């Protein structure tokens, strides 16, 4: 049943008095929201557990300085349990050189599909992303990335943006998973969370459909009461239940629409038979629904994650069954289908995908895996991305990295934003700032005053990258093409 937006809000009991008076579009915040993101979409993909950056963006040979391949071979050995990727395995997946040392780099062979997108010029590899005094706890470091605050507390960084643009009756974001992605966390607007859109159906008694209306009325009344309770948790459950009911009336239809119009793409996702492919498939359904004008669907921000990167043991090198290889295959293969699906829909230029992890791993391998490390690479993927290698490869030739025991250090690469440091790192908040400024069109002043906290770093330089303007080291064009 097609409902107008107005009917829909009334039916679901979400319409607050003031809200409907002049219609949704008269609300300045909502107008602003649509003006900011326009017809764009954002997808955040979290590699859960700490992705090994050194075996993701790998030195293939020594460059003009740094001796990174030599160091790599000292840090990653061959033989049983060895994690070294050989030059011959890497050379088909070469990417641009490290801008700083000229080191020839390649992607992990498991990322062969991502490499194809790289060759199309749609992938930016941003090396050495982290923050000062990096924390090696999964939970703390992950919270730091999710909240963009070095204390790791507070609302999610995208959550603050959503809360500044959307109200309680809106569902501007979808978390594909069992958990609401913490980068979306806040208490102002609703984030839909689902594994499959088809399952977003409100459960009712099949035997007595004539009682459905009475049940829904009572359900809404109970949840509306909770929404106005002074009890914070009761109110939270009330809001979540109402948003759930709302979603059950709009989202399941996207499933049938996509199935009918884009079945060959559906088969491609299903053929990959992986969690990441299934989750990106659900994102594709929503994006397609929006492009087709589906009623009451407005989620333009998406988050999903892929777990298993905490490879303390049995990390492996290449081939099916090697843990890190399988993880890369899952994500890379799914991203390739997703990108071409978007391209076929005509919206590849409208979608930005950001891939991140809470930290990288120790350059020096252990018996057959790697322990927790510091800075690592991020990926930005999309039609408007100026593909290439940005940022500096972490200095793995540092004596502290090559021989940690002798120096009483933890053996991780040095994170430094010091301008004079030749292997200067990139603050992850520079990347967030660039996304907010260039993709979500948020004014820089607002980013710095309320969305990202300048609790360290030089405010005139915004941590590392001046004014969040990343420039391609080769062609000197901006990271985000106009």
């Amino acid at each position, binding site marked *: 049943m097609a409902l107008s937006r107005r009917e829909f809000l009334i039916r679901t009991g979400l319409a607050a008095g003031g809200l409907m008076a002049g219609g949704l579009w008269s609300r300045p915040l909502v107008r602003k929201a649509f003006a900011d993101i326009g017809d764009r979409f954002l997808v955040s993909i979290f590699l859960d*557990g700490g992705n090994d950056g050194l075996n993701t963006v790998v030195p293939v040979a020594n460059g003009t300085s740094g001796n990174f391949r030599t160091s790599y071979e000292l840090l990653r050995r061959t033989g049983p349990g060895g994690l070294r990727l050989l030059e011959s395995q890497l050379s088909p997946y070469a990417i641009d050189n490290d801008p700083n040392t000229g080191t020839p780099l390649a992607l992990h062979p498991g990322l062969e599909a991502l490499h194809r997108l790289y060759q199309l010029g749609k992938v930016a590899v941003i090396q050495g992303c982290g923050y000062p005094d990096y*924390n*090696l*706890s*999964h*939970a*703390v470091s992950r919270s730091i990335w999710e909240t963009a605050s070095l204390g790791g507390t507070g609302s999610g960084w995208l959550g603050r943006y959503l809360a500044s643009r959307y109200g309680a009756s809106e569902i501007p974001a979808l*978390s594909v*998973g*069992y*958990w*609401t992605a913490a980068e979306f966390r806040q208490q102002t607007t609703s984030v*839909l*969370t*689902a*594994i499959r859109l088809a*399952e977003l159906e*409100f*459960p*009712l*008694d*099949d*035997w*007595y459909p004539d*009682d459905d209306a*009475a*049940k829904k*009325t*009572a*359900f809404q*009344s109970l*949840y509306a*009461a*909770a929404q106005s*309770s*002074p*009890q*914070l*948790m*009761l109110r*939270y*459950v*009330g809001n*979540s*239940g109402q948003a*759930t009911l709302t*979603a*059950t009336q709009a989202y399941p239809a996207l499933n049938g629409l996509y199935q009918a119009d884009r079945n060959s793409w559906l088969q491609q996702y299903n053929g990959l038979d992986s969690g990441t492919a299934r989750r990106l498939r659900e994102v594709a359904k929503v994006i397609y629904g929006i492009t087709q004008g589906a009623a009451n669907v407005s989620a333009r921000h998406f988050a999903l994650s892929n*777990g298993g990167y905490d490879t*303390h*043991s049995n990390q492996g090198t290449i081939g099916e069954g090697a843990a890190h290889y399988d993880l890369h295959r899952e994500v890379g293969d799914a991203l390739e289908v997703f990108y071409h699906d978007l391209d076929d829909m005509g919206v590849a230029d409208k979608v930005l995908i950001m891939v991140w992890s809470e930290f990288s791993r120790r350059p020096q391998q*252990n*018996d057959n*895996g790697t*322990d*927790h490390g510091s800075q690592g690479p991020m990926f930005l993927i999309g039609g408007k991305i100026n593909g290439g290698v940005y940022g500096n490869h972490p200095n793995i030739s540092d004596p502290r990295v090559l021989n940690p*025991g*002798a120096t*009483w250090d*933890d053996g991780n690469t040095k994170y430094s934003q010091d301008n004079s440091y030749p292997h200067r790192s990139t603050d992850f908040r520079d990347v967030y700032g660039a996304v907010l400024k260039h993709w979500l069109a948020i004014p820089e002043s607002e980013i710095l005053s309320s969305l990202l906290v300048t609790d360290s770093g030089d405010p005139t330089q915004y941590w590392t990258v001046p004014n969040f303007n990343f420039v391609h080291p080769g062609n000197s064009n901006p990271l985000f093409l106009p």
Partner: protein
Amino acid sequence: MGDENTILGATHARHLLRRAGFGARATDVQAFAGLTRGVAADRLLSFKPAKFRPGGKDIWRRRVSWLKYMVRVRAPLQEKLVLFWHDHFATGNDKVQDHAWMADQNRLLRLHCKGNFKDFVKAINVDPAMMEYLDTFRNFKDQPNENYARELMELFTLGVHDLAGAPNYEQQDIVQIARAFSGWGWDYSRRRVAFRDWAHDYNSEYESERGPKVIFKSHGGFGPSGRDFTQPGGEGPQEISQVVDILFEHRDSDGKSTVARFITGKLLEYFAHRLPPYPDNATIIDRIIQRSGFDTSWDLRRLVREIFVDDFFYETAAPPFTSTIPKSVVWPVDFVVTTLRLLKVNPRSDKWGNWYIEGGAYGNVTDYLAEMGQILFEPPSVFGWDWEESWINSATLLARYSFARDVAMARGNKSYHLRPQLLMDLSLTAPSDIVDAVTNVLGIADQLTASERQTLIDYLGSGPLDLNDPGVRQKKLHGLFALALQAPHFHLH
């Protein structure tokens, strides 16, 4: 201010029974109302830990085995504690890949669930499932693995930061403690954990490179020389117990026992609700430690008792609800087990290991639990599950609503059906009486406001209803059960 001599009214008795078990049956509420908080807590804690070990030939069957046990157990507090410890010492079969080890660990958690916490940690140190999960089995002198050393401090005993926000340890402490755990492995021939001298990191070989086996030179109140964990028993297999002894002497930046505050705070938030920010949380935690003597005795039984007699525990028991104290979200396993216990519904089993509700979508109980965000024996990570708001989102709520719908649709006269005649008087005809009966069965009568109660009455219509008429009963009474199970109040403590 109440204390252990405060007499429990019905509302507080119901709250205690819900928090210390799985739902409050009306008969239990009657039995507990009128007792003092202290007597009631002692009665709940009087069980002798059972030797139960979940059975079955795969992890799915063992999962169901544990759930069935929770539904039938006579001392539900025991299982509430085991669930807490499963979350605390989170271990996942997704990595361990050995369901027998997971079952062994489950029995270990039960054995120690209200025992001595220091002994408990020492036992977890050498639990095979844990040693596999956090890589103690892969920690060799020449290839140290820090995984367990880190989580032992961060998650099991100290926390990254103390209550005041000061760090409790540094990376160097992790590196050194990892040395203590080197050399442990699984002896395949004897099928037990074994210490292997050849793989252990001895100072004679590594001191020049790695420094002395000393920890806490900068944290924990041990002074600049820290503590040497080769003492008092020397180097060798005893190092891991000596490390634990030192951890338990760790003092935070307020000079208090870090372990006692960490565990007391976590148990308080599990059984009651989220603590206020520092320093108010410290006030509550410290008074409970002081009364229980937990920072010297490490006796979990006395600690839990003092939680159950403290005013903090009863703050969210009954309306009017305030804006400052957050209620606590019922865990998925708690919701499911409570529903089955209170409604006396036993899901059906089949030879393939399914355990399902014969109604609605005929869903497997464990599948519903997965959708609610809780797969027993497979916590999302070593951090266990995220609590409170994290349990609640559209995906998990729909799973909760669907499970409620299925249970309410399980109509018939078998033990796997919802049979209201076992729970209430079917001769009631007034909608208000019927609503009161159902909300009493579910233990939420005292949680509803008058208008919320009226919503449920309005759902039944103007009445009178003849519940002995199957058509009326199955449509409206079963519908009312579904609604009450889906109501926000049933998902909050």
